[in-house]
């Protein structure tokens, strides 16, 4: 059983390097997270597992969503970093594609942890899958610890509200919380805004069955024309903005921080507007 698993993992890793393009094996080998004799870092990130698990998502990246990146060189090569993006598409493929772009388009690759919803650890398989990929629950304590260790975090301030919004609200950002701004000020972390174009059309939600969602203890239950919110093959464009640095007290009242949050939101809106203008078609 475990031998079969090793064979599958081996061939998935080979697929990852094939899809990653020439030189991707050497580039990805530059990822050197701390790990113990059991192959994991203190958060449970298993880089070998991740290289294998990447393969199907990298296939989506190259062949299905055919992701194009714009301005990825603006992402700092090292040091603590918050990457803030719009969130949409019912299932978080946008997060996966954004994370992958940092791994396959940058040299050296940059590994970013996504912050997951607090209900994810309750889900069988999903919880351990995410943990082996190094993702953590987005508690302030976790974020502080990871930023202090000079790691990069992917944050979607719209959360599930953005992920599961209905199609007529496409590219209209939901309100951002101020939590990420407090964190950035407290830890002196630069913010890279990202506008993701394409994900918003992948699974247009017709309505959100809120009462049923509550019954199933899920954060939302959107109804889409495709079964199980399977995404349509829209082309993704990831537009990276210049890093933003903020100064001020992390303990300011919310309304004082909201101005700074609006600046980030404005930057993402601008990237989205540019991306939508330049895009020729939803699918190609």
């Amino acid at each position, binding site marked *: 059983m*475990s031998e079969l698993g090793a064979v599958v993992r081996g061939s998935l890793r080979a697929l990852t390097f094939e899809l990653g393009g020439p030189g991707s094996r050497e580039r990805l080998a530059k990822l050197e997270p701390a790990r*113990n*004799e*059991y*192959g*994991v870092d*203190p*958060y*449970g990130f298993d880089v070998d597992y991740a290289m294998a698990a990447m393969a199907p998502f990298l296939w989506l990246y190259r062949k299905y969503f055919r992701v194009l990146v714009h301005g990825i060189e603006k992402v700092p090569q090292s040091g603590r970093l918050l990457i803030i993006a719009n969130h949409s598409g019912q299932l978080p493929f946008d997060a996966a594609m954004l994370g992958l772009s940092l791994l396959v388009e940058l040299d050296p690759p940059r590994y970013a942890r996504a912050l997951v919803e*607090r*209900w994810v*650890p*309750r*889900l*069988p*398989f*999903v*919880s*351990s899958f995410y*943990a*082996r990929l190094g993702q*953590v*629950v987005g*508690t302030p*304590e*976790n974020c502080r*610890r990871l930023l202090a260790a000079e790691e990069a975090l992917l944050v979607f301030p719209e959360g599930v509200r953005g992920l599961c919004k209905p199609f007529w609200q496409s590219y209209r950002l939901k309100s951002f919380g101020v939590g990420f701004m407090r964190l950035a000020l407290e830890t002196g972390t630069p913010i890279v805004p990202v506008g993701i174009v394409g994900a918003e059309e992948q699974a247009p939600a017709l309505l959100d069955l809120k009462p049923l969602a509550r019954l199933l203890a899920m954060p939302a239950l959107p109804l889409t024309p495709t079964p199980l919110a399977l995404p349509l093959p829209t082309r993704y464009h990831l537009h990276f903005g210049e890093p933003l640095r903020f100064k001020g007290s992390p303990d300011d009242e919310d309304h004082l921080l909201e101005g700074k949050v609006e600046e980030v939101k404005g930057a993402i809106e601008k990237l989205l507007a540019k991306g939508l203008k330049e895009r020729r078609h939803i699918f190609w």
Partner: protein
Amino acid sequence: MRSSLESAALFPGMPRVVAVTGISGNLGRVLARLLHTETSLVGIDRRPFPERPKDLVHHEVDLRKRKVEEVFRRHPVEAVIHLGHGHHPRTPFSETHSFNILGTAKLFELCVQHGVKKLVVLSSSTVYGPAPDNSNFLTEEAPLMAADRYSGVRDLIELDMYAQSFLWKHPEVETVVLRPVHIVGPTIENAASKYLRLAYPVTVLGFDPMIQLIHAEDACLALALALRPGARGVYNVTGPGEVPLSAILRELGRTPIPVPHLFVRALIGRAFEARLIDFPPEQLDHLQYLCAVDGSLAIRDLGYSPRHTLKETIRSVL
């Protein structure tokens, strides 16, 4: 297996007479082996301690009884290490509660009356409780939420908080509360060690939390280092690192039986009621969610670092 502790040079200013409650227990014996050459040890336990080191004086007495006072009258006790509390899921709650809380209260009172300078209380990191929304590393400030899901742990929480309030009310007694992660070892018989000894351990299908273990000798090393003059406060104590549960079971050559989370509680609950197993179903949370702690404070303040590697620690249950 090598015993790295026997020749350990600990620190200058070791208290000359140290009383240890619960010394006849499995952890107490490990501590006795470590400390009897470093200081003069006085054992307090209601159980006998047959194969004790020759230089160790043992008093077979219940902490709740008046006779305990004699121990403090006869020996100039400078420090106390309190391990004498039990938390077996089969003992009736009123009995455990009386023994743990009244015994602890009596002991604390004696420490004040007899001018004991140092008190080290063993708690556990399970007081935080495993939960899906826990941070990956809980610090000492995290709320003690374990009783939220498992009431069996509430007298340990009560004991921990009682020790904390004693720490503030009696600054003349340097008090240290230690919260080690799951203690394992060849002679340890707690839930974690017993679980890891099962050939076919039940796991929760699709869950694989990061687990922290500490070797009993390392836990005892931390208890001994807490005797260091000047050390005071609440400390998490961690072992050599964290690993997924699946990796631990693989290292031990176990065959896990994964049960879907929708049925596993009912199944284990029935088996517990039928006395087939000694694991209360609430303990399943440890197989499902995180309850890992940040032990850096103890490393910084107590000068503690684990001496056993991750592999040694895991394999110590064999």
